[in-house]
């Protein structure tokens, strides 16, 4: 087929002045957008590449941070006197209940307007004071005073939750320092009767068994 003249000669093209004029601005805007997008993609790609290379060569460069310390070998079980020393040091110094009692109560608005009462003196924590004395006596080498103080806690303050612990320490002193297995067994038994904390029950039973074994 051959057409002598193109079909577009039958059509009017119209004026393209306006589209051409506004088109140049849009071309420039589109180029700017594409340029920015291309740069962003390039930057992201570079970052990704750098991260990948860093990760890949990571084994070649060991970390300069000090290596984590090797786990310590399990220390040998402390000897009985050492265990006793640490136990005495760990005797509770201040009881939580005492702290709670000493903490000032929140002042209510109604109370503010009421006439001021005389300030209540905080209760003295006798057991804490006794335990502190035990610690000092033990460190000073005054074992008999330490045992006397511990006995006092067990007898006069049996309702205090620290009494069982004090009797446990007393039993250990009697068993390991004074070689008095019979009295030690009594102290351990007394401690068990005072409903000791759960974590103290097993050591108390073991100590009691040991004391009974020595007593035989």
């Amino acid at each position: 087929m051959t057409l002598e003249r193109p079909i577009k000669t039958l059509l009017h093209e119209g004026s393209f002045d306006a589209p051409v004029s506004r088109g140049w601005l849009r071309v420039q805007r589109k180029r700017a957008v594409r340029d920015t997008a291309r740069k962003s993609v390039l930057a992201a790609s570079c970052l990704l590449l750098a991260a990948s290379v860093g990760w890949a060569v990571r084994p070649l460069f060991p970390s300069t941070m000090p290596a984590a310390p090797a786990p310590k070998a399990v220390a040998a079980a402390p000897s009985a006197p050492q265990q006793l020393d640490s136990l005495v040091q760990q005797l509770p110094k201040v009881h939580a209940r005492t702290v709670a009692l000493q903490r000032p109560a929140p002042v209510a608005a109604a109370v503010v307007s009421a006439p001021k009462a005389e300030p209540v003196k905080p209760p003295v924590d006798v057991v804490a004071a006794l335990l502190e004395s035990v610690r000092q006596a033990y460190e000073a080498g005054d074992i008999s005073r330490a045992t006397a103080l511990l006995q006092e806690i067990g007898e006069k303050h049996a309702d205090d939750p620290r009494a069982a612990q004090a009797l446990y320490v007393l039993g250990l002193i009697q068993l390991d320092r004074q070689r008095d297995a019979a009295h030690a067994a009594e102290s351990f038994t007394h401690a068990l009767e005072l409903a000791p904390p759960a974590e103290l029950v097993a050591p108390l039973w073991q100590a009691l068994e040991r004391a009974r074994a020595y007593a035989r």
Partner: protein
Amino acid sequence: MPTPRPNPTSSDARGADVAQLRSGVPDAVLVERARENDRGAESLLYRRHAGPLLAMAGRLLRNSHQAEDTVQDAFVRAFERLHQLKDPAMFRSWLLSIVVSLVKKRLRRQRVLTWVGLESLTDVTLEQQAHSHLDVEARNELKALDAKLKTLPSAHAVAWSLRYIEGEKLEDVASAMKKSLATTKRYIAAAERHIRPGVKLERLQEVP
């Protein structure tokens, strides 16, 4: 009283500009300048070729907005890839190939939209663009031709349109389509076999 400065957007200035564009610097020189990031040269290239390309894209796509968008995208792509153009004197045919490539893509998208029921707007059908002196028969032939072209594969429709609506040479059509001459001829022949039964093209040639 200061002398009023001439308005650069006045009709005189625009006329002088257009005259300079028509008779001015050849494409090859402007391309060389544009390669050196000369925005003025880019602007001249755009203003020289945008009008005819807009008209052609409008006729191929039957949508003025899509035609504008397509031509703008083509210029953006052309300026970005200007260093790939081997012969700067061939800027026009190279730009045409970019426009044709984008037109084919848009036509394929239009087909998909039509297929899923979202028919795209066609505000510049061939019949609507016809000169006012065309008689009813010629208008009907243009309408029938439009309908036939819409049902053709986009590559065939574009090849035929470039050859017989735009009047491009066969070699230029092949270049714009980025196909061999033989393939282009085959596309055009296939389109003709589809168009010929329903459209009297000779009737369009008889129009004064």
